[in-house]
């Protein structure tokens, strides 16, 4: 369980990235933080692994203040998928994935074996293991980033727009794969995105953020879609968007769901 307690972060120079943020992320659940650029999402994530220190307030993991943990040990215990890959360009894909195991003194051979297994689990050809990150496509690099975070089997996974740099089709593929992995692994995931559909698809719970990480609404995807708290959330999640507003038509004796543009999107079964 991760708890943010009245967390505020003011960066040197006075820019307030996060103000009075409180949230509980229950164990084995995925909480998706969604908000526009600059709303403080990355700052929130980085306060969990002490890459950023809060100006005030506390972040707790299983009731322990992260401030009381050794930062290096803390980071090794948390899987972190960075916003822009963050792979080491001079290490092969396999060694990138094995990095944290090696830092934890797992032997090279054992670390590589587990890394190779993980590559397969995230849907990468193990033959790619001997390449360098610069020789991979954006989508492949993202998968390597996910594999690197997963391989030490951390309880907590921080994911910062992990699928940001790929086209919509690959993005959808990666989302499905993460969802599948999560049903197997049951990690505590904080997932940051500015894509509402992605947040709805992956989050057990979704937190919509305004500037300074002010919580506009928090709830399950259906809660939020059914009853947006205010105008901001309504617009942000696109509750009024034509493709979100469905109605039914009876065609050939069957109920067909049609969206606001008149496009049939599916058949209703009773």
């Amino acid at each position, binding site marked *: 369980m991760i708890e943010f307690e009245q967390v505020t972060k003011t960066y040197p120079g006075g820019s307030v990235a996060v103000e009075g943020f409180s949230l509980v992320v229950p164990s084995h659940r995925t909480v998706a933080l969604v908000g526009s650029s600059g709303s403080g999402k990355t700052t929130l994530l980085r306060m969990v692994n002490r890459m950023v220190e809060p100006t005030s307030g506390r972040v707790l993991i299983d009731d322990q203040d992260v401030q009381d943990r050794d930062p290096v040990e803390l980071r090794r215990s948390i899987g972190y998928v960075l916003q822009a*890959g963050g792979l080491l*360009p001079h290490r092969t894909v396999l060694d990138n994935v094995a990095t944290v195991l090696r830092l934890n003194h797992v032997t090279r051979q054992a670390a590589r074996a587990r890394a190779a297994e993980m590559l397969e689990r995230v849907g990468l050809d193990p033959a790619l293991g001997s390449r360098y990150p610069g*020789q991979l496509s954006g989508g492949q690099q993202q998968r390597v980033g996910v594999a*690197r975070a997963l391989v030490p089997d951390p309880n907590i996974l921080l994911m910062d727009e992990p699928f940001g740099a790929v086209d919509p089709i690959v993005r959808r593929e990666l989302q499905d794969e993460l969802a599948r992995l999560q049903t197997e692994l049951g990690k505590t995931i904080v997932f940051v995105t500015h894509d509402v559909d992605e947040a709805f698809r992956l989050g057990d719970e979704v937190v919509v953020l305004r500037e300074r990480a002010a919580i506009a609404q928090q709830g399950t995807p259906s809660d939020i879609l059914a009853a947006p708290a205010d105008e901001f959330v309504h617009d942000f999640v696109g509750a009024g968007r034509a493709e979100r507003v469905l109605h039914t038509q009876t065609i050939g004796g069957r109920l067909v769901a049609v969206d606001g543009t008149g496009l049939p999107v599916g058949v209703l079964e009773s």
Partner: protein
Amino acid sequence: MTWLSLNWPHVIDLARAHLLLSVPAILLSVVIAVPVGRLAYRHPRVGGPLLGAASLLYAIPALPLLIVIPALLGTPLRSATTMIVALTVYGVALLVRTAADAFTAVDDHTRGAAVAVGHSPLAVFWQVDLPLAFPVLLSGVRVVTVSTIGLVTIGALIGVSSLGTLLTDGFQRSIPAEVTTGVIATVLLALLLDGLLLLTGRVAAPWTRAARPARGTAVTA
């Protein structure tokens, strides 16, 4: 050619002496300049003046330096130690700025990512900073190597044997073949070491060749 065919064992001996002076000096230059360069990168306020001062060392003329060193360190005037210290001074002067640049050129995002996944400060240095700075560092070391091999010949003027001895001796005794041999042997030695370093770079930094140039960014050698 006849001169060489008669004297080649002597030339080989001098070449060995030449290497015994230059290789330790090159290694010492690296061992000193890399930490200083890294310090300059980490603390630019101290680093700027430090780099300026270090580079100025290169402006000290060789002969006075060879006299000052024994006076300061108490080493014998005509000794390998004096020579190696002098060569190291020049090597460091040449290398510090490149070393600082090499660390500056390491992508901050990559460094930050390494910290974020749990590298300790020491691990960041050895496993991230140093290997990523390596290609630029190596280019600096190649310059130092060639320069050092050339500078060693000056030692002959104070009586420290090296291939430079062929030059002084050849001039004094008017044997052009000896002078020519000295020049060519020195150049060959420099080329040989430079080639070895080039090869080391290829083997030790395979990612630099493997990397596909990223779209829209300049390709660096």
